[in-house]
């Protein structure tokens, strides 16, 4: 058995307490440890992705108990991808937090950050439904702490709402798991797939309820309307690096739907039929609309980005709702894209807000480095709104391409295309309010810089140099998007194989339940 599979969980889990308890008075040490740990996580996840790429389903039997009795970790292409995504995002976010000093504004940032990573990786890797709940809780509670990092009235109020909403979600998760266990007698996802297929028709009602409740639970995380209400206030008030990190949190919900509903409760399942698919489609449609409407109506940068995230989740879930391999492929591509797009924008927004002093979207005087930030924001907005040439456009195009069945095409295309329009307009308005006041007073402006006296230009250059570290993480996120665009073909090929692997659940079931990688006890 390959112990590296559990490394993404164990590494942060051991590192976090050390940071919290040994290095809590030494920010430099904590930063170093956290950075090294996160980079190591990235390296490990690259390794795992390579390992998963051969198409095998790798199973890790915790406690050496056979499935479905013990808990298993399952490394397949999807979970490897998600872990890789998390690690990469984490590196970006962490360096932003360090460069901007966010991590110093409260206690225990790095410890909570590592715990957050542990929770997320754990949720992606687990092959057990109840263990998924546990890791949801780990990632949630760490996110609570990160959400109110540095404190403040509004942030606390928003944090409180975030906690309450998620506690209700967690409670519902338990109701759902209970119903599932009561009808199938198992918790292992692979075993669930089998049991649900074999289930006696008399339990259909229970299984359907369980599937629906799970959809709602994951819908809360994935900001599916009408369960999305927590998101705008949370994202708009969370510390920027945290909001950026949260870009992966909504994806946890989407992942769970893909994993559990896609594999166990898809349309081909007699008990649930098209129940989940239909409702997910309807709700995702509304989500797309709500997000776009919110973007267009936003008055604050924070809420603009929040609604953009909601809209992107709607689009993503529209693709998921089809539950066919190509649609899932497109959903995964869009998932990767929207994670980095959201992260880039939240990080940029942080830098912009820090220069402007507020995040109000009215026309205001320009600030230092206006042009640079305008350009970066423009790139991020293009990505987020799904405009060419960045990955957002390709993602949307693929999703449109995937949603062609006659029942959905009209609604889905209208929602996505109109949604894009509103999003573009919202961003255009925001951008022009934020950056287009006047260039005359901006010393770092390129045109002026050329004519300006040398000292002036030099001092501006210095200022630019001092913030280069702070800008780098957002730039990296944008570069990831660019890479995702250029490499769209190979990436999609990988994702195609991923969704094919998901679609043929027999491999998964076989690997988990009959796997021979378990050692004899």
């Amino acid at each position, binding site marked *: 058995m390959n112990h590296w599979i559990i490394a993404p969980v164990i590494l942060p889990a051991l590192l976090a*307490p050390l940071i919290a308890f040994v290095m809590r008075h030494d920010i430099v040490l904590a930063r170093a440890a956290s950075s090294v740990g996160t980079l190591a996580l990235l390296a490990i996840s690259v390794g795992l992705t390579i390992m998963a790429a051969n198409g095998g389903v790798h199973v890790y039997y915790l406690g050496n108990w056979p499935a479905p009795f013990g808990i298993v970790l399952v490394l397949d292409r999807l979970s490897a991808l998600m872990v890789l995504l998390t690690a990469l995002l984490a590196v970006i976010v962490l360096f932003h937090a360090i460069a901007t000093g966010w991590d110093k504004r409260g*206690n225990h940032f790095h410890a909570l950050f590592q715990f957050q990573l542990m929770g997320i990786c754990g949720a992606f890797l687990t092959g057990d439904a109840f*263990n998924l709940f546990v890791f949801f809780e780990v990632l949630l509670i760490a996110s*609570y702490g990160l959400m109110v990092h540095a404190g403040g009235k509004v942030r606390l109020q928003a944090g409180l709402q975030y906690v309450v909403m998620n506690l209700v979600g967690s409670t519902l998760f338990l109701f759902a798991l209970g119903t599932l266990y009561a009808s199938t007698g198992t918790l292992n996802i692979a075993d669930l797939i089998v049991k649900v297929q074999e289930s006696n028709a008399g339990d259909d009602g229970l299984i359907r309820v369980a599937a629906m409740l799970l959809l709602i639970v994951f819908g809360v995380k994935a900001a599916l309307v009408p369960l999305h209400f927590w998101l705008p206030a949370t994202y708009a008030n969370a510390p920027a690096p945290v909001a950026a990190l949260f870009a992966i949190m909504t994806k946890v919900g989407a992942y769970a739907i893909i994993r559990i509903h896609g594999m166990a409760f898809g349309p081909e399942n007699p008990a649930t039929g098209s129940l989940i698919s239909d409702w997910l489609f309807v709700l995702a449609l509304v989500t797309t609309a709500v997000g776009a409407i919110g973007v267009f109506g936003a008055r604050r940068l924070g809420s603009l980005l929040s609604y953009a995230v909601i809209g992107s989740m709607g689009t993503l879930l529209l693709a998921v709702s089809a539950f066919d391999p190509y649609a899932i492929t497109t959903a995964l591509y869009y998932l990767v894209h929207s994670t980095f797009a959201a992260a880039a924008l939240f990080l940029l927004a942080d830098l912009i807000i820090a220069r402007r002093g507020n995040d109000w979207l009215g026309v205001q005087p320009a600030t230092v480095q206006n042009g640079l930030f305008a350009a970066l924001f423009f790139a991020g907005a293009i990505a987020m709104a799904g405009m060419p*040439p960045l990955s957002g456009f390709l993602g949307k195009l693929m999703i449109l391409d995937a949603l062609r069945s006659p029942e959905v095409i009209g609604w889905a295309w209208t929602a996505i295309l109109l949604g894009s329009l509103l999003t573009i307009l919202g961003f255009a308005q925001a951008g022009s309010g934020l950056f287009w006041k006047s260039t005359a007073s901006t010393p770092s402006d390129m045109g002026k810089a050329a004519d300006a006296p040398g000292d002036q230009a030099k001092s501006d250059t210095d200022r630019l140099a001092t913030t280069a570290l702070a800008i780098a993480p957002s730039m990296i996120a944008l570069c990831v998007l660019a890479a995702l665009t250029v490499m769209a073909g190979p990436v*999609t090929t990988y994702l195609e194989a991923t969704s094919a692997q998901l679609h043929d659940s027999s491999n998964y079931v076989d690997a988990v339940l009959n796997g021979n990688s378990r050692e004899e006890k």
Partner: protein
Amino acid sequence: MFSENGLLPIIAILPFLGALVPGLMIRAGRNACASFTAIPTVLALVLLASLAPGVMSGTVYRAEITWLPQLQLSASFFLDGLGLLFAFMILGVGLLITLYARFYLSSKDPMGQFYTYLLLFQGAMLGIVLSDNILLLLIFWELTSLSSFLLIGYWKHLPEGRQGARMALTVTGAGGLAMIGGMLILGEIVGSYQLTDILAAGDQIKASAWYAPAVILILLGAFTKSAQFPFHFWLPHAMAAPTPVSAYLHSATMVKAGVFLMARMWPALAGTELWFYVVASVGLVTMVLGAVIALFKDDLKALLAFSTVSHLGLLTMLLGFGTPEAAIAAVFHIINHLTFKAALFMTAGIVDHETGTRDIKRLGGLAKVMPITAAIGTVAALSMAGFPLFNGFLSKEAMLHEASHTTWWENPWIVGALATLGALFSVAYSLRFIFHVFAGPVRDDYPAKPHDPGFGMWAAPAFLCVFVIAIGVAPFLATPVVKMAAEAVTGEDLSFYLKIWHGVNTALLMSVAAIIGGVILLVAHRPLERLWATMPRPEAKTIFDSLITTTQQVMRWLTGMLHQGAISRYLAIFVAATVVLGLIAFSGGAMGPATRDLTPVPPVAFVGWMLLMAAVAMVVLFHRMRFRALVVIGVIGLMISVGFVYLSAPDLALTQISVETVTILLLLLALHFLPKQSPHESGPARRAGDATLAVMAGVAVAALAYSFMMRDFSTISDYYLANSKSGGGGTNVVNVILVDFRGYDTYGEIIVLGIAGLCIFALMEALLNGPAGRKLRKAEFGPDRSRDRHPLMMVVATRVMLPIALMVGVYIFLRGHNQPGGGFVAGLIFSIALLMQYMASGFAWTTRRQRIEYHSLIGFGVVIAGLTGVGSWLAGRPFLTSNFGYFEIPPIEEFELATAMLFDLGVFLCVLGAVMLILYSLSRLARHAGETVNNEPIDYDPSRSVQASSSTGKGA
């Protein structure tokens, strides 16, 4: 051959690569910047020129780079006649604009940005005309919208610039999105996104049921881009851009993209009734409307803008006719329009630049002071008017000819008549441009002192005028180019000659009528203007603005209403959605009959149930009396624990009751700061609504629970019973599951607790350092409190209780694997024991006796549990594999040592640390609020005071 094909992507990418140049070169000065900006354009032109002979001879160059095969999106380019023509136009005019802009832009304008945007835009346009993949074309299409947004909004300080940019983006962006839909449908019909395939599949497309939606959607894209009625209104507002931008966008590029697309798609889409009636009609209306409005515009650029609208209408109409002759006319007019319109815009720019105004009413007589400019302007304007010997005349004649031969709705003359009307107005505004700007006496009230600009500025329009005249005089020069492009449009071999004189025919008569009418209109301009001013007409910008504003307000209202911040409403929606969706799910599936009998209910159990239900009712009814609610919560916890005992779950009972107690302590600590009562805030209607929802949720959950409790099921649990002792080394199966079978869950769970401790500690620190801390320091206490802080009896009882309680904790810990108990409960018992000590002797006194930090306890706990798991790696086993054995110390009986126990120790430490850290944090808040620090365990110790008073003399 390969190398020539391979040039295509290079040509397409050159402007984008070039876009990096200006930003770098601007530091070397404005001339260097402009020169280096021109380099990629020149290079692209040269490469293009090297391919031109091949294209002229009928070769179609192709290049394909795989990009996203799953979507059939590839970076594939092809170059045919139409593409070549447009590519030349784009690059050529681009070069001229680069030159012109160098002298036009002032030193305050950030030139680097300008050229970057310009090259981006140029690249996007070039991409459109070179794409062989309609998805790729879409990408470039949307890129033109984006980059034109930047160009139009280039003068950021002008509100009109910002608004104009947004309007252009809105309209063209929306059209672009519609076009995405159309293109995807087209791809679906043909089964390929390759343009060449699509162009070859015209019959298949036109026969498809999806033809109409595809055409409509694609045309929406083309019409918005080419400013066709009713989407024409954005174009004049885009004039807020610097004139080089207008000259570029509105002569050769942006607006021509729509025309290009219609021409490109001509073989695939044109020739049907639908196409004819939509495209030709829209074009016709646009042509006339644009011409009429243009006549009454006083702003030079506005006049030109509406004339552009009109000419685009003309082109659209021609393409709508669907005949090869019309296509030829269209292609020819595309070239001609480019030459005179670009020249005219630049002229207008020069006038503006030199006189400081573009208002025709303030101009006139410039021919004398700016002869070169006037000459250029006049030539171009005459061409626009369609006067013979200028190129505009030729294509206009062709247009009139086609119009006069077109029957619309069984009416043979209406198209011709309207086309003539359009031409007539066209003559009128063109002449107005000449006469009201250049002719007449020199005025003395120009805002600036006008004179001809330097060569750099007039060179470009003059160069274009050469073409205006050359083609006008010798149209055969243009024949090969027009033929090449028109054949590419129609996909047929065409043979024709472009010539000046076709004899006296209908078209000529129409033309003459137009010129005469135009002159009359110009003469009667004053009264007509007054008439125009009194005419009610919808102002497109107002409508658009109010549309956008209203939409935005509605969306703001909608968003605000949905997201008003009231989590109580969010949760109500959440619950309602859950109940409804749950019911829908449940009702759609069968539910088998009960397979189990009801378990009998002894009376005592019933009593317990009554207590529980009564307590729930009380909490709900009295929740505003917070303390009372907490007491009643205690009853609920107690009853649930007893229920667990009765229902064979002793471990649950232990855990429930200890967690319950700690939770209540926590709530009491918090309630100390909070208001002790909640006000009445929700009205009866709301309470009734909430109660209804609550009851629905309750009934749903109860029904769900009841329905599965009455049915048997098979579970994996027998395995745990069978293997608990042999495989896990313990007889308490629940504990073995927790620390072994599902130890990983427990590992996650203690981490949750540890994080909770961290979160709370971090938050407490943040609070103390913020305004809350200052508020706390100013806190006041009520006067009524008991004076007895550390009651003597309590202190003494605790001294006895503490060791016993710790002993109980150890006992519970050690037996957990085999009997109810375990690390978690033991941790809680330790915590409760310590808490008792805190309650009795106070925080400060007790903390001073604390030897281990709570932080470290959590850390140790998590690390020990983790390392125990990792330890199994040493044996080559997976994480958390337990190992156990029975360890016999002779006098002490069988004493089990399982690694699971070490894991449980981690659990124990973590729980203890977390609980204590949480309570510590809360009581630190209280101490911050001015609690005096106690140094004594008892407020007053009678025995010590006796000793003290008796030993005073001894000076102890």
